[in-house]
């Protein structure tokens, strides 16, 4: 039987505020345990939550960016469950009326564009962290993270493959980074994803029973976890079994998903409006103000790159997905006279390869944008050839200094003095009378041999264009 995969994602984005959503405790990452856990974070009796304006602003910013309905009246609700990293016994979230309603984003798969629906995005508080490893009979609780503002972005079940799910996840990641509403760091848990996965026979309109995959903390794992879960469900159904609706944990070491039975009963959350928090009303001026602060978004920037720099669709897409990379490109392009074409080639070529090799982000690049611009200028003003520029790039990457000092130190400056080049050409031709004869007999291919010899003698420094001109002049 042919099966169709149906995927919906729930993405938790930590909003970049200084203080927590309902208290004045700091949200900075990496502090000593519980030093940023105030009386509200640890839920001492009698404390009251007070809403952070900035969290609302950032949520609205996201909503406007994806063209979603904004609910100017939204309601906070209690989601009740018991777990030690949630000391109140409930999480403050939004249920019936979230701050952001229906919207959509566009993804591109193999050159085809598809719209993925966003059902809603609601504000809520993060829980603390449980540390199981360090103690024998106890679990350690760190409540620094408790109360950090989260925006939970819920998609429609619109994705039909693991690749599409990853494309959508990357799109949302790119949007939140562009908007500056989150640092989007998956390792530190500020961008987390749960996937609802089901399969159904091709052609069937109702959905199959779904499993919810938790704990997927990288783009690569999202794809792997969904693939392995889809295989599991298909095997199960083809063997005459049934998929059970449950929460499953993805284990990246074993590349398998397994049932989390402990959380099953907890799914009865008994939501109700939080009596401590009246409805949040945002007036038109608030929304208009946020609208004004919207930056250029990834798809807009991509179109601009295509239009103003004559770059291709694919390369513009690659450049603009990560805001920091697009910023790097624009900085190089405005600093250097070499033009956008060569800047794009070098950034997506040598630079991206070096970053990938060492698993670095563009923000950790060992060559800064101004340094890159100078290197490209030296190609542009013919100080070095494109080929030698790769050597200079590698040296810069290894920390040997900027382009000019590497060129100077290694003596890589291109020879453009035609007298000097002519002397080398004469020497090569004198030493290769056989090949000269072959050329005269009509074998054009030996020209490559001459160029090779000239480059060898000049250590690659002779300007290739001049070499060609002088050669032809001498031979013809």
């Amino acid at each position, binding site marked *: 039987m042919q099966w169709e995969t149906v995927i919906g994602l729930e993405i938790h984005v930590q909003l970049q*505020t*200084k*203080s927590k959503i309902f*208290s*004045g*405790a*700091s949200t900075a990452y990496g502090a*000593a*345990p*519980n*030093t*940023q*856990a*105030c*009386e*509200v974070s*640890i839920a*001492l009796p009698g404390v009251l939550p*007070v*809403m*952070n*304006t*900035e*969290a*609302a602003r950032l949520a609205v910013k996201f909503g406007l960016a994806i063209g979603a309905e904004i609910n100017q009246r939204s*309601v*906070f609700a209690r989601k*009740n469950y*018991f*777990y*030690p990293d949630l000391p109140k*016994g409930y999480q403050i979230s939004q249920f*019936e*009326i979230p701050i952001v309603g229906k919207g959509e984003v566009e993804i591109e798969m193999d050159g085809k564009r598809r719209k993925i629906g966003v059902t809603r995005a609601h504000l809520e508080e993060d829980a603390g962290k*449980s*540390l*199981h490893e*360090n*103690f*024998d*009979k*106890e*679990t*350690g*609780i*760190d*409540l620094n993270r408790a109360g950090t503002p989260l925006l939970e972005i819920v998609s429609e079940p619109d994705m039909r493959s693991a690749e599409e799910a990853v494309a959508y996840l990357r799109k949302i990641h790119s949007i939140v980074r562009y908007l500056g509403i989150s640092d989007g760091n998956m390792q530190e848990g500020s961008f987390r994803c749960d996937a609802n996965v089901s399969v159904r026979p091709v052609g069937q309109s109702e959905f199959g029973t779904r499993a919810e995959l938790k704990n997927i903390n990288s783009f690569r794992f999202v794809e792997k976890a969904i693939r392995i879960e889809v295989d599991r469900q298909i095997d199960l159904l083809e063997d005459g079994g049934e998929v059970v609706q449950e929460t499953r*944990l993805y284990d990246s070491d074993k590349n398998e998903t397994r049932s*989390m039975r*402990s959380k099953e*009963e907890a799914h*009865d959350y*008994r939501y109700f*409006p939080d*009596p401590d*928090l*009246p*409805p*949040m*009303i945002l007036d038109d001026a608030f929304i208009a103000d946020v609208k004004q602060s919207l930056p250029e978004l990834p798809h807009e920037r991509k179109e601009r790159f295509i239009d103003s720099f004559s770059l291709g669709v694919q390369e513009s897409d690659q450049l603009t997905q990560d805001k920091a990379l697009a910023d790097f490109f624009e900085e190089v392009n405005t600093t250097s006279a070499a033009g956008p074409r060569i800047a794009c080639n070098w950034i997506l070529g040598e630079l991206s390869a070096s970053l990938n090799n060492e698993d670095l982000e563009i923000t950790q690049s060992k060559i800064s944008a101004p340094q890159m611009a100078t290197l490209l200028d030296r190609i542009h003003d013919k100080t070095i050839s494109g080929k030698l520029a790769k050597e200079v790039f590698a040296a810069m990457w290894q920390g040997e200094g900027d382009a000019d000092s590497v060129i100077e130190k290694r003596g890589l400056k291109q020879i453009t003095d035609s007298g000097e080049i002519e002397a080398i050409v004469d020497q090569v031709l004198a030493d290769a009378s056989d090949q000269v004869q072959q050329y005269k007999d009509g074998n054009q291919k030996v020209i490559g041999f001459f160029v090779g010899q000239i480059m060898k003698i000049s250590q690659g420094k002779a300007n290739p264009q001049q070499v060609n001109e002088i050669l032809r002049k001498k031979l013809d």
Partner: protein
Amino acid sequence: MSITSDQITHIARLARLKTDPEKSEYYAAQLTRIMNLVEQMNQIDIGDTEPMSHPQDAGLRLRADAVTAEDQREDFQSIAPNAKDGLYLVPKVIE
């Protein structure tokens, strides 16, 4: 609408309330009466009045995004049942 004693056991467990099994019929009868009262209110025609989510007709007060809380870990942990290395300790929780 009538609440069964099984439902009493279930919601008591969800709320981590210890109930006397012998009294579950009694609770069930009481809660049924409350639910019937709600049911009765549901019959009232209120036209197109928007449901309220809060008894007061007030909007949420918003505060500026500023760190105002100080580190009081030592004080808080001095009254905690168990704490070590800055962490609050609870009986082992296994996923």
